[in-house]
């Protein structure tokens, strides 16, 4: 009886779940790498990767090896990392704002990051990859500030935050459209619109490396503060009464969320609803405590996004559907379910 009751029981369950999810993740990444304009079998995928890592010297057509390593694997890994990052953001925001519907896309943070990035692309403020990320980061922070201002901190109810998020989304999307239509040429406009719905096309290894560092550091910080996040279960004041430095935790974690969102948006665009769907699904399996929830969110988010990427490429023949379309098709019904279930308590 104690075994099932003690936290150690949960740890074993979590470890099993994580192992299983990582195996599934490896398999989905391999599948994502195998599928494309022309399919490459899984054995070739595996040998290409081991060849590149210098583990084997198998005889693979150079073109296939290059496609696997340079185009598809980097794309699949960015998808996995973006999914992990957005899911972590969702879990953090849901805990801090105590709102089941909170996530970067719903709160307008993704829209803010898009506006920042578009400023850099179209208006040419600054130059190079770093300034694109910086622009997105500034936009994400502006959105956070606006939402905080509109919902007026802790005094308003959780619903205000979502309404403030709606307002922020509208404002930043309008700004983005304004900038694109007034300053961009037709080609830029088309590029930006496609990118706003999310696209993993064109990502390369440097993107993987940057995102890997950001996701690992963010996950580390969040897990470090995981226990403090649990203390927010009954609100800010309750957390303070339990000895949690509320203001500092909020500042650091909102910062981490903005950084993650900005990095992801500047790379692959504003992909919605991953941060909404994944934490709820993960909570269902590993429970609400953040030391377990956050790692679970990371792997489940990764699997979800890679599957969404595969779906976006096979759902229409000869066309790649924007990834945001796929996640929205899954996410919006999910959003409706949560909204419906949250209603009686509101």
């Amino acid at each position: 009886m104690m075994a099932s009751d003690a936290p150690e029981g949960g740890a074993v369950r979590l470890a099993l779940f994580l192992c299983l999810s990582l195996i599934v993740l490896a398999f989905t990444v391999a599948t994502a790498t195998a599928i494309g304009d022309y399919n490459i079998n899984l054995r070739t995928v595996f040998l290409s990767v081991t060849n590149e890592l210098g583990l084997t010297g198998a005889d693979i057509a150079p073109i296939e090896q290059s496609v696997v390593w340079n185009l598809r694997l980097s794309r699949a890994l960015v998808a996995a990392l973006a999914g992990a990052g957005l899911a972590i953001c969702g879990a953090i925001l849901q805990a801090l704002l105590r709102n089941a519907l909170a996530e970067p896309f719903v709160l307008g943070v993704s829209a803010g990051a898009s506006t920042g990035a578009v400023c850099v692309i179209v208006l040419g403020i600054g130059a190079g990859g770093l300034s694109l990320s910086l622009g997105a980061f500034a936009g994400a922070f502006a959105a956070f500030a606006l939402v905080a201002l509109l919902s007026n901190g802790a005094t308003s109810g959780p619903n205000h935050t979502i309404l403030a998020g709606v307002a922020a989304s509208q404002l930043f999307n309008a700004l983005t459209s304004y900038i694109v239509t007034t300053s961009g040429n037709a080609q830029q406009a088309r590029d930006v619109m496609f990118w706003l719905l999310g696209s993993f096309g064109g990502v390369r290894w440097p993107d993987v490396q940057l995102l890997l560092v950001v996701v690992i550091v963010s996950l580390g910080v969040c897990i470090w503060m995981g226990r403090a996040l649990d203390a927010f279960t009954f609100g800010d004041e309750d957390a303070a009464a339990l000895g949690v430095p509320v203001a500092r935790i909020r500042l650091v974690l909102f910062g981490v969320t903005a950084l993650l969102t900005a990095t992801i948006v500047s790379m692959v665009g504003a992909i919605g609803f991953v941060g909404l769907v994944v934490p709820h699904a993960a909570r269902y399996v590993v429970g609400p405590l953040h030391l377990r929830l956050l790692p679970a969110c990371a792997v489940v988010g990764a699997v979800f996004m890679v599957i969404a990427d595969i779906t976006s490429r096979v759902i229409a023949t000869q066309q790649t559907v924007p990834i945001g379309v796929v996640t929205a098709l899954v996410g919006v019904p999910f959003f409706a379910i949560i909204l419906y279930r949250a209603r009686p308590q509101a």
Partner: protein
Amino acid sequence: MSVVAKNLRWGVKRKTIVSDVSLTVAPGETLGLIGPNGSGKSSLLRLLSGLRHPLSGRVEINGQDIAQVPRKALSRQIAFVQQSAATDTNVTVRDVVRLGRTPHRSALAGWSETDETAVAHALERVDMTSRRAQPWQTLSGGERQRVHIARALAQTPQVMFLDEPTNHLDIHHQIEILRMVRDLDLTSVIALHDLNLAAMFCDRIVVLEAGAVRACGTPDAVLTQAILRDVFRVTAHVSGSSDADRPHIRFSPQ
């Protein structure tokens, strides 16, 4: 553990909410805080527990100024129970009580024997041991409040502050909660609305009016017809009950 407040003053913008409050709570005492709506009960409780910082004045717990004690260390000595705190998260009774160990644990420390004992004792104390695996959402109002008290007890505090812990509860559960708090072996300060309950369960009572202490003393000294008329604006008859110095208040309708 004693609690001493000296000349506490607090407000928002130009509005003073707590003005020049001084009071003393003796170790082991149960102090009731009464007063009409907006008299500053909740604000005073938050100042006493260090959740808000006074504009001037100070609070000492066992002779130590709480402004000098880090928040986490403070939370190992004092616990705060809000009125009907709620959550949408799907947590169990045990999860909630375990939160009480937060100030005792470092970021990644494991669950120790001391933590386990504190949680077990707290659950036992509020008679929820057999229901520790039950989801929070399925508990009744009275049960939720008992779990909140268990969580506060898991902090192993020496002082407990409770902000209207009996709100929204039926009379049986109101009495049950207050009896539980009174019998705890620690210093407690309770903000209460029901004057008769305050008279029944508190050793001493502080009457707040417009942020200032209007009266302070044993229930029979404080709950007088004059104070009830001036502070609460009600006509009432106060009679001695069978219990020595516990007055009983009967309100007149008009």
